[in-house]
């Protein structure tokens, strides 16, 4: 062991001691000009400067991303985040990982952003891969991938406290990091109360005021996360994580058949990741995690069915085991390959009409070969084979060439294919309500016919990444062909043949049961929906992001997205309007001196009509600002910040014309790092 000799001299051990591998290949990020896809990197400073309150808001800064505070009156009043639109409530065409753990929900797909056990202050960086990336991240990395990395426990030592207060929102986060040398850990606890949107919302289309009472979107989020990193020896490393996120979430509008309600959410996960560092920069890793999503939720019917209630709760387990090996077969190549198996076990009685849980299995093999043909040319060839219970086996390839045609300037061309597996709801839904009056009947609102194929995408792009002295530029032209898109379509399970014409030439599977109810119970399914592979679309356009540092203390980040969707299925789904044609984001951050810093962030989001039969919402502009004062407190640092969102009190709708984000909202945040 290294030891300081008496009087401060030291022995040769400082030179000879073995050191653990810290910056291992899986921890290092790929430089954007060598990545086989367009990447937006969001670092901690950007998260802070953006003044984001919710995790989902950060993605407004990513070109091509559509973010809405609410996703309307669906399963949860959660935010929606979607890349290249086809914006719907669940953004289920994008993969989201936190430290390699998929938080893509098995139920409706997509991500319940507020339910992830993750504190904003623990995030190290977020990489957003703009484009399909099945070869590296598996199916459902359909339009994009969000890859969130939390800070290493060795980097979060000591005490940290963050307190926020503002109208309708308050938060306390406390973190403690301990251990030393080979074993470090941290624990973060958080408590957040959020009253959500405004109480009164004027609907300009229906010309009335909805939600006289407080909108039912309050959240109480309780979180506890733990991360420990242990160097078993100089080659072996073990990472352990545990997380919990629970609390009350309000739900519902009180305008449909059920009263608004409060559900209790309790999610947790456990993760073990073992890595062995091999010679020449290789690595073998084995990761296992278990995630558990639980919501206790009872629906109470409105008159005339007062007294009727339904258990809308869910208990969903995910078990996932992955093995990955990285090595260099030769001087000029590097190979990443591996495999994984997953089990999703879901108990969801109301939506699946089963009293036992449903198991979904998935197995994958993946590989990517990176070949440096010449010092200035890198070729990436990758593929993934996936087998799952819903759609069988699929192989999705990707090839990309990065050419550094002059120092600091890179051209990239890539072609990739990806699939999206139908969600549990699309494939297995049987959502029915047994109603006793006037005579007992089953009101079926959703009935999955099954037999779905995966959605498919073929994506071709040309990209440019340039580094000038103070400017980083990224430009991308893309052409995405989507087929077999899954969408809901009228389907009467009580009388399947009466549903004709079936969408898109769909032929009913042979053994569809008819009259699906118990003896003596009538079947009502006239307005029922099923899911079908009945859509296709082409999205083309370009994106640009610029990062300019005119001086040491100033940073300007600009994002632009232009996308045009064409689809022959306009009558069934408004794909063509589901992506804003033009969107811009701009962030200017400046530190005035050692104490004062500020940032200003603006967004322009074009008109959008999200999928799912919702109304169109107009284009809007919005500005956020942040002013912070840093100070020393004892041994540590502190920062007091005032964040104002929607500085000019713009009134606009997101996602649907019932979701008006809060007007000008301000809060104070105090951070202490001791």
């Amino acid at each position, binding site marked *: 062991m290294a030891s300081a000799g008496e009087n401060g*001299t030291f*022995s040769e051990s*400082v030179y000879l001691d073995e050191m653990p591998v810290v910056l291992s*290949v899986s921890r*290092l990020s790929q430089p954007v000009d060598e990545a086989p896809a367009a990447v937006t990197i969001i670092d901690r400073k950007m998260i802070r400067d953006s003044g984001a309150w919710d995790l989902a808001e950060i993605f407004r800064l990513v070109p091509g991303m559509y973010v809405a505070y609410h996703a309307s009156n669906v399963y949860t009043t959660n935010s929606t985040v979607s890349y290249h639109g086809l914006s719907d409530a669940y953004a289920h065409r994008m993969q989201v990982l936190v430290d390699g753990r998929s938080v893509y929900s098995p139920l409706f797909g997509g991500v319940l952003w507020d339910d992830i056990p993750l504190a904003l202050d623990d995030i190290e960086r977020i990489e957003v891969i703009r484009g399909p990336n099945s070869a590296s991240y598996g199916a459902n990395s359909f339009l994009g991938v969000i890859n969130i990395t939390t800070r290493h426990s060795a980097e979060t030592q000591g005490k940290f406290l963050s307190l926020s207060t503002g109208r309708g929102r308050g938060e306390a986060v406390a973190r403690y990091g301990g251990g030393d040398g080979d074993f470090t850990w941290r624990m973060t606890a958080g408590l957040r109360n959020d009253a959500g949107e405004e109480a009164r919302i004027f609907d300009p289309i229906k010309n009335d005021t909805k939600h006289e009472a407080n909108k039912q979107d309050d959240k109480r989020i309780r979180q506890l996360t733990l991360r420990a990193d242990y160097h078993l020896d100089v080659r072996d490393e073990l990472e352990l994580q545990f997380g919990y996120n629970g609390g009350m979430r309000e739900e519902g509008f009180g305008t449909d058949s059920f009263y608004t309600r409060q559900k209790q959410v309790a999610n947790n996960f456990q993760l073990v990741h073992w890595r062995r560092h091999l010679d020449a920069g290789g690595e073998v890793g084995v990761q296992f995690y278990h995630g558990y999503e639980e919501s206790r939720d009872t629906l109470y019917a409105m008159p005339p069915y007062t007294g009727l209630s339904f258990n809308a709760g869910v208990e969903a387990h995910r078990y996932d085991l992955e093995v990955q090996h990285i090595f260099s077969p030769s001087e000029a190549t590097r190979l990443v390959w591996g495999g994984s198996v997953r089990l999703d076990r879901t108990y969801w009685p109301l939506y699946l009409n089963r009293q036992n849980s449903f198991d979904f299995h998935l197995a994958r093999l993946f590989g990517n070969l990176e070949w440096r043909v010449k010092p200035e040319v890198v070729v990436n060839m990758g593929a993934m084979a996936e087998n799952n219970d819903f759609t069988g086996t699929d192989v999705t390839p990707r090839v990309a060439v990065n050419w550094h045609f002059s120092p600091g300037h890179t051209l990239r061309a890539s072609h990739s294919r990806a699939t999206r597996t139908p969600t549990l709801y699309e494939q297995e839904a049987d959502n029915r309500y047994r109603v006793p009056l006037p005579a007992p009947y089953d009101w079926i609102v959703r009935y999955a016919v099954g037999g779905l194929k995966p959605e498919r995408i073929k994506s071709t792009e040309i990209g440019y990444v340039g*580094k000038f002295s103070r400017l980083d530029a990224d430009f991308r032209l893309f052409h995405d062909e989507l087929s077999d898109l899954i969408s809901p379509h009228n389907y009467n399970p009580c009388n399947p043949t009466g549903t004709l014409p079936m969408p898109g030439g769909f032929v009913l599977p042979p053994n569809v049961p008819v009259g699906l109810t118990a003896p003596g119970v009538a079947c009502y399914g006239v307005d029922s929906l099923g899911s079908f592979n009945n859509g296709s679309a082409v999205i083309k356009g370009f994106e640009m992001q610029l990062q300019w540092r005119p001086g040491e203390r100033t940073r300007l980040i600009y994002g632009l997205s232009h996308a045009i969707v064409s689809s022959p299925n306009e009558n069934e789904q408004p794909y063509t309007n589901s992506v804003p044609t033009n969107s811009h984001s701009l962030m200017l951050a400046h530190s005035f001196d050692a104490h004062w810093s500020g940032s200003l962030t603006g967004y322009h989001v074009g008109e959008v009509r999200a999928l799912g039969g919702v109304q169109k919402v107009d284009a809007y502009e919005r500005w956020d600002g942040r002013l912070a004062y840093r100070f020393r407190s004892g041994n540590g640092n502190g920062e007091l910040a005032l964040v104002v969102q929607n500085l000019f009190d713009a009134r606009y709708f997101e996602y649907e014309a019932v979701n008006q984000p809060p007007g000008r909202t301000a809060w104070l945040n105090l951070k202490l790092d001791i």
Partner: protein
Amino acid sequence: MHYWRFLSALCLTLAMFCLPLTAAALDGVTVVLSEEGGAYAQVVDKLRAVLSQNGGTARLPVKVIALKEGDSLRADPGQLLVAVGTGAMEELAQKNLPQPVLSVLVPRAAFEKTARQNGRYGDPRNFSAIYLDQPWARQFALIRHALPGRTKVGILLAPNSTELATALSAAAKAAGLVAIVGMVEGEADLLPELKRLLGESDVILAVPDPLIYNRNTVQSILLTTYRHQVPLLGFSPSYVKAGAIAAVFSVPEQIGQQAAEMIQRLAADRRLPLPQPPRYFSVGINAQVARSLGISLDDEASLNNKLKRASEGEL
């Protein structure tokens, strides 16, 4: 005090009288190892291999003993003592035997302290060393060649190495670079000081000091510098493996080679050359880290050659 001064004066006088009388080729080399195996054994294996090749002088018998066998050593002017590592160096310094002592695999600071404490500081011809430390000029040359354009070199120093600051600044200046020194008083201000330094530096040069660079701190130092996208130059192969972008260092075999050559060239009077930095060295790079930082590095061999040419005048 007077007693010691008298004694050393007596020794010196005796030596002056004795040397011409015993002026003859070495009878042999006795190597004392601080620890068995590992780097210590690699030094001695190389030393033995070179000395048995019958180079400039006749083959020399090499006897290797462990530190605990040090008590068996007796005055034997025909022998040269080679101390491998700080432990052996201290033991031999305290013994104060008449035969010359060459210490290898020792940091310069450790050598100077031991020599001073045992009254052998003014006696380099009989108590000399090959340091493990690379000369500053060589390290700055590595920065210049590997990371051209990065001129602001951040260096963390602990209280016991503050005296290096002047030498470092001068060497940096000579290489056309600027040394920015951050002082670390204790473990608590290591990371705050590092973060401050990272704000001002293009590259961090790790200067070995166990108060700053040790197994407990390596993770947070490397993770923090990486997050700031600033490369760190290490001082050993294991730092390169751990995540330093590059390092210039001498492996035990190179130290053994230099020691053997030094012994072969000893004049008949067996007076050792002055303490010196390593003559042979290697450059290690971490290509993955470089790439992730968006830095294109030359390969190890060509950096090695460039440094060799640059350091030709040093020795």
